[in-house]
């Protein structure tokens, strides 16, 4: 990321809809109220309705690049012949996702690692290449369970984003982080004014004051992985998972969880016809680790909680030099029984 690309512009809040109107080559998404208290990304129908100051969405934006269901290929057989496989690589319409919180965009960076570093996943990459993410810096933590600062992020982090928008009274400061972000900015033409030195100072101040808001702390992030390793056999896992009901909320709604299951959805068994699909799966379900032999190495809820926490804070850190968790706080806020990953890390992830 070179400095020359860092384009910083100002947009009147009232002009957001006009800018969106100029992006007709892309399908636009923004957080919309789906039900009481439930915000989710939905196609923008009326640009004037987009507010961008809502609490964070229930579903993270990973849906755009790693949908809950992806068809891998189709198969069909003519009786007596070998089945024919048809590739179904995604070719989505280019889209722009507005209102992405920095924790979630950092989640995308982690998804990138999983789906590109060791193995190039064409389904993920096909979608990633067509989706532009426009970030929304947080003014105050959108949830009392936010802890992005504690896991190396910040309320104004640019990681994984194409553009970052920051609200300053009546205006948005818009910073292009990538080339395609800059191109999107350019489409706004005269709607955007060059950011002045005082605007830049105001943004820096806004980012600083956002960062200063108290969040859930993790004291020694650098030592968490080692401590978790030490405590692998701790009895405390079972104790902390006593309340766990074994549902998939914490993982399905995590911006960084990426596990999936592959199934054949057969519409006709002979001659065979159907689709091979991959769907989200979670380490919290009993059949996740079930062996064909009938043995389940992770039979207890404690071992599943340990897997989730250690994957976020130990295994990923060991493999990719960064914690996987980005501190969005969804797994804490949405847990039906109040299991709190910060408390768990505090208890077993500190030296």
């Amino acid at each position, binding site marked *: 990321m070179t400095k020359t690309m860092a384009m910083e512009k100002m947009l009147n809040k009232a002009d957001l809809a006009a800018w969106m109107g100029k992006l007709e080559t892309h399908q636009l998404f923004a957080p919309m109220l*789906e*039900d*009481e*208290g*439930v915000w*989710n990304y939905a196609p923008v129908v009326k640009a004037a309705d987009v507010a961008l100051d809502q609490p964070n969405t*229930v*579903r993270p934006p990973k849906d755009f690049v790693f949908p*809950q*269901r992806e068809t891998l290929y189709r198969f069909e057989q003519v009786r007596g012949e070998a089945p024919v496989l048809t590739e179904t690589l995604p070719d989505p319409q280019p889209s722009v996702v507005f209102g992405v919180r920095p924790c979630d965009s950092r989640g995308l960076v982690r998804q990138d690692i999983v789906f590109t570093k060791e193995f190039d996943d064409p389904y993920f990459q096909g979608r990633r290449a067509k989706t532009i993410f426009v970030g929304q810096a947080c003014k105050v933590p959108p949830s*009392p*369970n936010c802890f992005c600062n504690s896991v190396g992020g910040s309320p104004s982090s640019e990681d994984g984003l194409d553009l970052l928008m920051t609200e300053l009274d009546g205006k948005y400061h818009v910073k292009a982080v990538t080339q395609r972000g800059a191109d999107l900015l350019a489409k706004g033409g005269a709607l955007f004014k060059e950011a002045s030195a005082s605007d830049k100072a105001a943004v820096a101040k806004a980012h600083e004051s956002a960062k200063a808001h108290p969040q859930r702390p993790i004291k020694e992030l650098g030592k968490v992985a080692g401590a978790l390793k030490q405590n692998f056999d701790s009895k405390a896992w079972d104790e902390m998972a*006593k*309340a766990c*009901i*074994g*549902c*998939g*909320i914490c993982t*399905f*709604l995590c911006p960084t969880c990426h596990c999936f*299951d592959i*199934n054949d*959805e057969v519409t006709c*068994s002979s001659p065979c016809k159907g689709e091979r*699909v991959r*769907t989200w799966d*979670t380490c919290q*379900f*009993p*059949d996740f680790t*079930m062996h*064909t*032999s*009938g043995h*389940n190495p992770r*039979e*207890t*809820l404690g071992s599943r909680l340990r897997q989730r926490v250690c994957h976020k804070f130990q295994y990923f850190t060991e493999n990719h030099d960064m914690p996987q968790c980005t501190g969005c706080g969804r797994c*804490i*806020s*949405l*847990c*039906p*029984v*109040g*299991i*709190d990953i*910060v*408390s768990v890390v505090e208890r077993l992830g500190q030296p």
Partner: protein
Amino acid sequence: MIDVAAIKAHAKALLEKGTVRAVIGYRNSTAGLLAEPFVFTGPESVDDLIYGPSCVQNLALYLVNDKKERAHHKSDDARPVAVVAKGCDARAITVLLQEKHFLREAIHVIGVSCEGTGVVDTKKLARKLGGKHAVEIDFDGGEAFAVTTADGVQSLPAAEIMAERCLECRGAHPQLADIAFGEAKTDRALHTPFQAVKHKMKEEQDNRWSFWARQFDRCLRCYACRSVCPMCYCEECVVDSIQFAVLPDTTAEEKANRIKWIERSPNRSESAMYHMVRAIHLAGRCIDCAECERVCPVNIPLRLLNTRLEMEAFETFDYNPGSDMNAPTLTSSFKDTDPNSFIR
């Protein structure tokens, strides 16, 4: 008002004497306003036990989980386990006893009456507080909750922020209990039972379908509704396939022909199947703790779906789940007077 100190003292005495293995109760959670279910095993840990309007979870679930866990660890401790039970929790335990999930002697029920109130609905509370964030909630006399926010403590009428299920509750005082705390108030006179479902039934059928189709479309299939339900104790849920025994002589054909009733894809038809199967399976067993609806991260109104057949059980078959542990279950019994005119 309910005497929490007395509940604590009782729980402590049980653990000190060693008459129970553990006490399943509530403690404060670090995650937010609502309590966290907790299994207290030592007398000193009972200091953390709480009881209040934040204690929403149905603890009967943890009796089911406890049974699983004991089987896993091959525990031979035969002492009973104690459980704190509200009216709805006690009804759930009664259904489990009725279905012989465990023996009556295996549990010690510490009944707690909801008296005139019930538990809090956090969505209603958030609406009422309009942006302010509640950090603590407690009973305030018989008809109000004391809510603590950054601005201090305020008293709110319980009926305004109480969970819907509590407003329609038909048994706020636990009927099944070894010891009961709190006043047995029966004349709650809040909402008439099945009010919400009756209202929905008045809608046109096509509109009802559009309503439910939208809900099924939104379902994440996180299965939180199933996981939190004390009645969902099947060894193998129809959506999973953990018990399909793959033996050395299981042929590829047997594996391929294994019936897959519901695909994993989160789409309308499959999610509809899942929720319908659950609703049917809960007929005459659902005791309306509404935990399924509370835990849903996208607010699917599952209580509405599951109380539809409860209404039928109650009004058509004169059957009240969780009222009698010795009665036959709804679908394992019949009467000559059962409706017959719908059959051609």
